[in-house]
Structure formats: structure tokens, C-alpha cells
């Protein structure tokens, strides 16, 4: 299955505040691409642009699936989800007063996803045993790690091909961060996903990323073709590793 996400030269702003400037990145079939950057540099905005929640003022976002091009800047969020793009939003953004099961079912809201509900639900419960045990519990009453699992499981309910993960490490303890990242890798391999992950935890992100981009003040300042490439970069050293001279 051929899938390719190409973002070229997008600008986005919240009113007068510029969030993205001339951002171009691409994600190819089967890759795990990391979008690295500290808080407030535009990672989430870029994710939201792909989902159609924030509209870029210029530039193109194209998703190629099976040799068919889709212009994501012209599609609504629900149409983008229907194409097979799902997002695990930053801070999890669950439905806290709905049950775990209802949260999962909402992940499969699109009519295209509904025929596979039983299968996907079973798969989610098999993967995340704790969710099965707590299926009738209110999502907001679970621990942070469990909520993060639920957020990931919910995204998988729509049988996505491209998974966007926005800051999976936010609000989790180091051990849970590590577990979550490992989980994303396992799920990616199991479901044949393509993953774009925004993350500020450099060391965790590069554990599973094939390559990555460094975003600073809304601009892509470095494109690393491999993890080694990223680690060797001066800017990365400066921002993350604190080893630059």
C-alpha cells in the first residue's frame, strides 16, 4: 500500500501570531518520522494543519494513497479521518465523563469505520488488557498512563493508515513515557502504520524514529536523514543534548 504525506511551504497563524512559516516535511509509507522541538515551536499546529483543524494560509498538504492525491487543506477533519488519518492529541483529550468503551467507539464514529468496530474493539482490548478490565469505568477516573493508552487505542479504532501522535510523553512519568513509546513502535509494526510523532523528549523519540525534523520558532531548521544524523547535528546538540561548545 502506497501512502505519502507531503507538506510543502505551509504558513499558519493564530490571528496575528505566526505559528508556522514555510514548513515542508514529508512522511513516506511505513516510516516513523519524529518532529522534534521544544514547547511553543509549532509542532502541535503542524499536526492540527494535517488534521484540518487549523487551516494554513499558504502552502499545500497532500496525502497520496494508492496513487490518488488528496488535498488535505480542502477537506474537513471528518473527511481526513475517513481517508485513514488518525491523531492521538496532545494531553490525550479523552472524553472524561464517558466510559472507556464509549471513548473507543467514538474513535470509530465515521461510517466507514463502523463495519470493523467489533474487530477493532477486540484488538484494542487484546492489546491493552487494562482497558478491557475498565471498559465500563469513566475515562477521566483512570491514571495518566491508562488514559494515554486509551487515547492511542481510540485512534486505532478508525483503522488508520497514518497515525499522528502529538507529544505522547506529556504528563507521564519517565517509565510510562518509555512504555508508551515502545507501545507505539509495536503497534506500528503490527498494524503496518505510518507514524508522524511530535515529541520534545529527544532521547525517547529517536528510539523508534527512522528520521526526523527539528522545528524551531515555526520553521524547520534541520532535516535529519537518520538518527545518527540527528544526533550529530549542532542545533540538536544545542537544544537537547547540551553538549554543543
Amino acid at each position, binding site marked *: 500500500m502506497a501512502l505519502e504525506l507531503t507538506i510543502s511551504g505551509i504558513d499558519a497563524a493564530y490571528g496575528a501570531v505566526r505559528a508556522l512559516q514555510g514548513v515542508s516535511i514529508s512522511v513516506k509509507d511505513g516510516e516513523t518520522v519524529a518532529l522534534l522541538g521544544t514547547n511553543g515551536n509549532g509542532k502541535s499546529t503542524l499536526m492540527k494543519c494535517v488534521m484540518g483543524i487549523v487551516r494554513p494560509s499558504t502552502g499545500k498538504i497532500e496525502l497520496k494513497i494508492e496513487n490518488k492525491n488528496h488535498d488535505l487543506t480542502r477537506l474537513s477533519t471528518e473527511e481526513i479521518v475517513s481517508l485513514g488519518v488518525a491523531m492521538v492529541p496532545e494531553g490525550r483529550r*479523552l472524553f472524561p465523563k464517558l466510559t472507556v468503551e464509549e471513548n473507543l467507539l467514538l474513535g470509530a464514529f465515521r461510517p466507514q469505520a463502523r463495519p470493523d468496530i467489533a474487530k477493532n474493539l477486540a484488538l484494542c482490548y487484546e492489546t491493552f488488557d487494562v482497558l478491557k478490565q475498565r471498559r465500563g469505568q469513566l475515562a477521566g477516573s483512570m491514571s495518566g498512563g491508562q488514559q494515554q493508552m486509551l487515547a492511542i487505542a481510540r485512534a486505532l479504532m478508525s483503522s488508520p493508515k497514518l497515525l499522528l501522535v502529538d507529544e505522547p510523553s506529556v504528563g507521564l512519568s519517565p517509565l510510562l513515557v518509555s512504555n508508551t513509546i515502545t507501545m507505539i513502535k509495536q503497534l506500528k509494526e503490527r498494524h503496518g502504520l505510518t507514524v508522524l510523532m511530535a515529541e520534545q523528549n529527544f532521547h525517547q523519540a529517536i528510539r523508534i524514529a527512522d528520521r526526523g525534523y527539528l522545528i524551531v520558532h515555526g520553521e524547520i531548521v534541520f532535516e535529519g536523514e537518520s538518527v545518527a544524523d540527528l544526533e550529530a547535528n549542532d542545533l540538536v546538540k544545542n537544544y537537547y543534548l547540551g553538549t554543543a561548545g
Partner: protein
Amino acid sequence: MKRFLIGALAVLALAASMPLIFHNEYFFFAGYVVLQFIVLATAWNILGGYAGYVNFGSGAFFAVGAYTAVALYKAFALPLGLQILAGAAASGLLGFGVGMLTLRLRGIFFSIATIAVAIVLETVVLNWHYVGGAKGLPIMRPVETPFFASHTVWLFFVMAALAVLAVGAARYIETSWIGRGLRAIRDNEVAAECSGVPTLKLKLGAATLSGALMGAAGAPYAQYLSFIEPASTFSLNYAVNALAMPIIGGMGHWIGPVIGAVLLGSVQQIVTVTISSEINVLVVGVMLVVFVVAAPEGILGLFRKLFPSRKS
């Protein structure tokens, strides 16, 4: 579904057989008001309870239904059924407009906007002389009502049918994907959008249906009173009751607004007769405060707390 249908038919049969039990016309006069509140509270709950968009302008939707019916009755002498349809259509359109407000306004700002809508519309009707303007307009009731003992009994039955329709619609929404989507919007609208829930479509649909049902409840109002005037038709009373009843009954389940409307509506009718019509607003206020403090999940929530095993 089958059980609900049988229940609905039973309620209608009961309403139709009431004249055999009660011969006092006042029973139907008061019963009409309670049924009307069931429709209003149920309609309010579709947008306010399921989707979490609190509408403070229920009086305006009610009045738009009532005045649409009056205008069409005066112009073309339309029969009641068509008046109700037209009233529902006009209020549904207003609901669609209010639904568009949700694009920009959430939470308390949406609620304030609905109050503004109500005030603007009341001012318009105050200056619309064709339907009587500020001084109101007397409406002649039809002299004869076939099959029914009196016109009031007939209107009572019509309102019972509307109540069954409204509750049926609410129940359908609640148990379908639409209801799940609306609950998602109430809980976290951004997350709902991320999950591919078509939030705008659902909100517009809920606002339109909610408005249409309120308009349908208002359409027979002028015939019921034989008179219509803006102050009482746009009364804040409707807005307060439409909101208080679901809160007191419980907002999560379709039966909640029904319980709230029957309880609050009956108490108000009894208070009006036995004490004074002015006191009934106080009754609503006091009950609302008591419930918000003591049972924030309404009577349904209280019931679930007392009988945790029951799933209803």
C-alpha cells in the same frame, strides 16, 4: 424499541381515554400545560443535555411557533395540524440559525447569545401589528370539535401526541450514533473533532430539532388561550422551566426531562390553584437550588445512587 413503541401507544390511548375518567374541564386545561412542558424540556435537553449547549432562549422558540401559527391562521385559516407543522418549521429554522452561533460561541457565551435572540425577536413581535403587536390578538376557537368533548380536550390530546413524538425523537437520538457524537461534543469538542465526529453537522441537527419541537409546542398556544400577546408568550418562564425540568429530572437519559416536567409542571399547577400564580416561579427557583445542591445529577442520578445495580 418494541417496548418503547408499546409504551408510547399506551400513553396515547390513556390520553384519549382521559375524558371517560375526568369530566372536569380544568384537568385538561392543566394537563395541557404539563404536556407542553414535557415537549419543551425534552426539546431543550437534546441540545442542552446531550450536546451541552445551554439555551436560555426557549421562550423565543416557543413564541416563534405560536406566532407563526397565529399569522397563518389569521391569513389563511389553516387547520391546527398545518399550524403546528409551520410553527415547527419556523422554529426549526431559528434553531438552525442558533446552531450556526455554535461555530463561534461556546459555553456561557452561547447562552448569552440565545438570550439576545429572544429579546430581539420579542421586540420584533411587539411591533408586528398584523398579529396584534403589544396589545395582543384574540383568537376565535373553532365552534365544534369532532370526536372530542371540547376544544380543550382536543388540544390536550394533540399535545400528548407531540410529547410522545418529542420523547421518541430524543430517545432515538440518545441511543444512536448521533447521541454518542453529541455526548462527545459535550465532553470535549476538540477531541470529538479529532476523532472524526462531524461536530458542526451534529450541532446544527440538534439545534434544529430542538427548536422545531419547541415551536411545535408553541403552535397550539393561541388556540389554547383564545388569545396571544408577546409578554406572556416570550416569557422567561418558558426558558427557566425548559432548563430547570431536565436539570431536576436528570439530563443524561430521555426520561429525565419527562420526570422533571411532570413533577415541576404539576407542582406549579397545584400551587397556582391553591396558593397563587405568582408563587410558582418561586417554587421553580427553590426546587432548582435544592436539586443543584443536593442532587446535581437530578432525580435520575439520585435513583442511581440509591439503586446502583439498576442500569437505566
